[in-house]
């Protein structure tokens, strides 16, 4: 009987006009290949955000979709959000 905890980013979504990344991290407890339980943790990455702490895959996606134009457009959107 071998128990192991497996953590994976099982869903990475690119959403909205500013291509914000939504990352779902799954933590699964597996016994002899059979998943006993799992839970999700989520976070988002906005254009221009510091991605140094993200996985290589998320960093690569951010580099591809968070262009200078997207970052500038997002920051303008954020700056205008005060009511």
């Amino acid at each position, binding site marked *: 009987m071998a128990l192991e905890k497996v953590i994976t980013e099982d869903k990475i979504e690119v959403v909205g006009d500013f291509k914000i990344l939504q990352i779902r991290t799954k933590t699964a407890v597996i016994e002899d290949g059979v998943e006993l339980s799992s839970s999700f943790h*989520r976070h988002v990455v906005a254009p221009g955000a510091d991605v140094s702490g993200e996985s290589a895959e998320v960093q690569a996606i951010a580099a591809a979709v968070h262009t200078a134009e997207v970052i500038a457009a*997002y920051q303008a959107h954020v700056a205008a959000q005060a009511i």
Partner: protein
Amino acid sequence: MTVTINGTTGLATDSTSAVVEAVSLNHPSSSTAAITMDASDNVGIGTASPDAKLKVVATGANLLVGYAGTQNYFDASENIFRNFSGTTLARIDSDGLKFNSDTAAANALDDYEEGHWSPFWCDSNGNAIFDASATVNFAHYTKVGRYVTASCYFNMPGSFGTTSYYSAGGALRLGGLPFTAYATGSNNYYAGSVGWYSSWSWDAGGVSVSPLIYTRHNTTVLNMVYPTTNGVGTILMQNVNVGGSGMIITATYFTQA
């Protein structure tokens, strides 16, 4: 009741052990197998070649389940659950689950998810302004369709430093939301509620009122403001640059999918 076992086509036996390995039953007036059990223990109703443990092939009321006079059935032709009088109870299609006779894609329930998130003080872009993680006592989200409810209770540790994104007079945000707030068009905002906050420094603003929170579509953070006599004021990063600063909140908003 009459049951006909139709020799080599209806009853097949293993050549050495004579164990029945496949059976097909049909009504005497029909040559089509009504019920079939094959060598893989698959049972077919209305099919002679079931490829699952139970496969039902028919038109109309495909699968009827009854109990004490109440009967519902599943109409596989349209993925509809009906009651016995034909009234649609629910439908599952590419949009999701739709109730009663509703066919509108916007009303389909297409997702349910629960999980956790990690709140932290940040700037407008979602960058952490302190160099230590908060102690998250509780941070949970539930997503039903597009509707997200995120709650949390967290405190900063007793001492910590600032990051390059900290600016004492900068607008404070709460980051780490599990989903992006989303809506089409402009002026779409979502609000939340603050149940408790502690160890804040209000010296700069000179106020001691409960914070308010809201978020705008296509952003990933909660804006932090406080009520004034004729509007709101912006809560600053320095207001929470205090050991133990924390809060309890619940925010609700729509996300894209």
